[in-house]
C-alpha cells in the first residue's frame, strides 16, 4: 500500500458505547488517504486497520441508499459523497446525525422517523382501483413533473438533522415525511389527499415548520422538502376554510 508515502488526515469521531460510556466522547486517528477517498472510506480504513469497534452505517457508497448520513464538521452530509481532501489540513470531525438518539458511535435510532414515514400512507390510493387486466394508471409527463422531485427522497434523514424545529420537538412530522406526503398528494393518479390532510393540518404537521429552510439546503437529492411543507401550509389553510364554510358532509371529512 505504501502507507509511508501517503498523506494523512486527522479523523475525529464521536463515540458512544451504551452501557460503557455515560455520555459520548471523541476519539481521533491519523488516517492515510488519497485524493479520491471519501469520508466513508476513511471510516472504513479505521474500522479495518485501526479500531474494529467503530460502528457506522453504510451500504451503496454512491448516494443512493441513504445509510451513511453523518454530521461532518457540523454539517449533515452523506459520508460517501464527501471527500477527505476537502478537509485539509485541519482534519474532520464526524458525529452521528443530530436530533436523533445515538444507539452506538455514529449509528442513530431511526424508529421515530420510520413510524412517521408509514403514517402518511406513502402509496397510491386510486379513486377507482383498476385490475391488472384494465392496465396501468396513466399519466402525462407534465403530471409526473408535478411530483417527480419529491419522489427522489432516499430517507437519509439529513433534513431531520438540519431541522431545529424537529430537534426541539420530535413530535413534529418533519421535512422528509411531509415531502413524501406531498409527493402522493400531487400525483394525478392518487385520490388519498383527504386521508392525509389530517397529518398536514395537525399542530405537529406543517405548522410545526418555521421555514428555517436548512432541510432543502442539505438534501443530497434536490427534493426541497421546505417547499413541500410550505405548499401544504396553503393547502391546510384552504382545507380549514373549506371545512368551516361548507356544510357538513359536503367535504371529505
Amino acid at each position, binding site marked *: 500500500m505504501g502507507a509511508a508515502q501517503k498523506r494523512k488526515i486527522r479523523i475525529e469521531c464521536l463515540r458512544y458505547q451504551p452501557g460503557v460510556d455515560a455520555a*459520548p466522547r471523541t476519539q481521533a486517528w491519523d488516517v492515510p488517504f488519497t485524493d479520491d477517498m471519501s469520508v466513508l472510506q476513511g471510516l472504513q480504513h479505521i474500522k479495518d486497520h485501526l479500531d474494529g469497534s467503530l460502528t457506522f452505517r453504510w451500504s451503496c457508497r454512491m448516494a443512493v441508499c441513504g445509510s451513511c448520513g453523518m454530521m461532518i464538521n457540523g454539517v449533515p452530509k452523506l459520508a460517501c459523497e464527501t471527500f477527505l481532501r476537502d478537509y485539509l489540513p485541519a482534519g474532520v470531525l464526524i458525529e452521528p446525525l*443530530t*436530533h436523533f438518539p445515538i444507539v452506538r458511535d455514529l449509528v442513530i435510532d431511526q424508529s421515530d422517523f420510520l413510524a412517521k414515514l408509514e403514517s402518511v400512507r406513502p402509496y397510491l390510493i386510486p379513486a377507482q382501483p383498476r385490475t391488472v387486466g384494465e392496465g396501468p394508471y396513466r399519466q402525462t409527463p407534465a403530471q409526473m413533473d408535478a411530483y417527480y422531485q419529491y419522489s427522489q427522497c432516499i430517507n437519509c434523514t439529513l433534513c431531520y438533522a438540519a431541522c*431545529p424545529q424537529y430537534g426541539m420537538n420530535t413530535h413534529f412530522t418533519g421535512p422528509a415525511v411531509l415531502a413524501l406526503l406531498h409527493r402522493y398528494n400531487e400525483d394525478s393518479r392518487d385520490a388519498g389527499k383527504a386521508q392525509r390532510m389530517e397529518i398536514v393540518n395537525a399542530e405537529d404537521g406543517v405548522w410545526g415548520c418555521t*421555514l*428555517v*429552510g436548512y432541510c432543502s439546503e442539505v438534501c443530497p437529492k434536490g427534493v426541497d422538502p421546505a417547499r413541500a411543507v410550505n*405548499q401544504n401550509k396553503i393547502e391546510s389553510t384552504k382545507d380549514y376554510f373549506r371545512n368551516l364554510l361548507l356544510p357538513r358532509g359536503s367535504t371529505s371529512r
Partner: protein
Amino acid sequence: MSTPNTYTRPIAGWWRRNPFYRAYILRELTCVAVIVFALELLVGLWRLVQGPEAFDAWRASLAQPWVIVVNCVVLALVAWHAWTWFEVMPKTLPFINLGGRRVPDRAIVAAGAIAAVVASLVVLFLFLTL
C-alpha cells in the same frame, strides 16, 4: 419501538452552531425593526388626530438627528427583513410553468424584489410630488 440505552445530545445553543442558523435568527430578529417602524407611524396617526400642532410636534421630533440615525438603522433592518422573505418566497409557491418550462426560483426571488423596489419608488414619487 425505541432501542434502549440511547443517548440524545442536548440542543441548547443550536442557533450558534451554523452560519445558516445564524442567518435564520437574524431574519426572525429583524422583525422587531418592523414593529418599531409600525409603532412610529401609529404614533404619527394618533398625533394627527389630536390636531395640527400635535402633528407638527411629532414631525419635529422625527427631525432630531438621533431619531434620523435610529430610523436609518431601522430602515436597513426592515429592508434586510423584506429581502430574506423574498429569498424564501419560491418555497411558498407551487411550480410555475411558462411556455412549457419551469420558472427558476431565482427568477421568482428577483421578480418579488424588483416589484418591491418599484412599489417603494412609486410611493416615494407620490410622496415627493403630491
